[in-house]
């Protein structure tokens, strides 16, 4: 996989409307894509990694995601989306409801690089305590957007 040498910087956007509480329970009514049984999670902000978040399954101790705010990785993300995708995210509150934030999962690939799933981001509504995984259509993002090259 070709990995960008440019590394995004977690910016001030992390400070906006992030829940102050250490832990927030989030329910995904339909589960995650391909994993409908993964519904109940605890969202937490780890002290050792400000700007990142942990989404720990309350049903399966072995399931835990590391999340990053999409706008911190790709500030212009919303403007790159197809009109349908933008409308879909807007309907979930992304971009106008201050209690809703868009996160993406991070994954370590077999070459040890770290990637972000920007094709299937998570809209988390901290006001209602619920989340939705969106699958974008017609937008130029992949499930493995390079974030940290191998060996770094």
């Amino acid at each position: 996989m070709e990995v960008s040498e440019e590394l995004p910087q977690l910016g001030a956007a992390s400070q906006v409307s992030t829940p102050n509480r250490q832990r927030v329970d989030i329910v995904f009514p339909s589960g995650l894509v391909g994993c409908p049984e993964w519904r109940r999670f605890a969202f937490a902000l780890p002290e050792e990694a400000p700007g990142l978040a942990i989404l720990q399954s309350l049903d399966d101790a072995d399931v835990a995601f590391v999340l990053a705010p999409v706008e911190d990785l790709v500030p212009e993300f919303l403007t790159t989306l197809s009109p349908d995708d933008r409308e879909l995210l807007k309907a979930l509150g992304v971009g106008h409801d201050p209690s809703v934030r868009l996160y993406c999962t991070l994954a370590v690939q077999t070459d040890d690089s770290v990637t972000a799933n920007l094709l299937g981001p998570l809209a988390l509504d901290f006001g209602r305590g619920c989340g939705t995984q969106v699958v974008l259509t017609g937008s130029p993002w992949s499930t493995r957007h390079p974030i940290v090259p191998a060996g770094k």
Partner: protein
Amino acid sequence: MLVLSRRPGEALLIGQDVRIVILSVEGERVRVGIEAPREVPVLRAELIEAVSEENSRAARVGAQPDLLVRLHRNLRQPRPDATTRAPESPP
């Protein structure tokens, strides 16, 4: 699996609300038109499969103790010119 043959211009109905029309066939490419209620998501299967596969991979990331530190170290590096841009055309 139900298998049907259709010609361009012919349609299929799935339930009351979903209508699928074969628009054209050119070589190996079939253009399909879909009419469905807004609440019925219509997605290319490979997108669902890709996101599902990545969910399975990412679900184990939180259990790797040194990863958060590594991620944090890399993501916090000051790179004033650092930007990640979308590719110019969809993959």
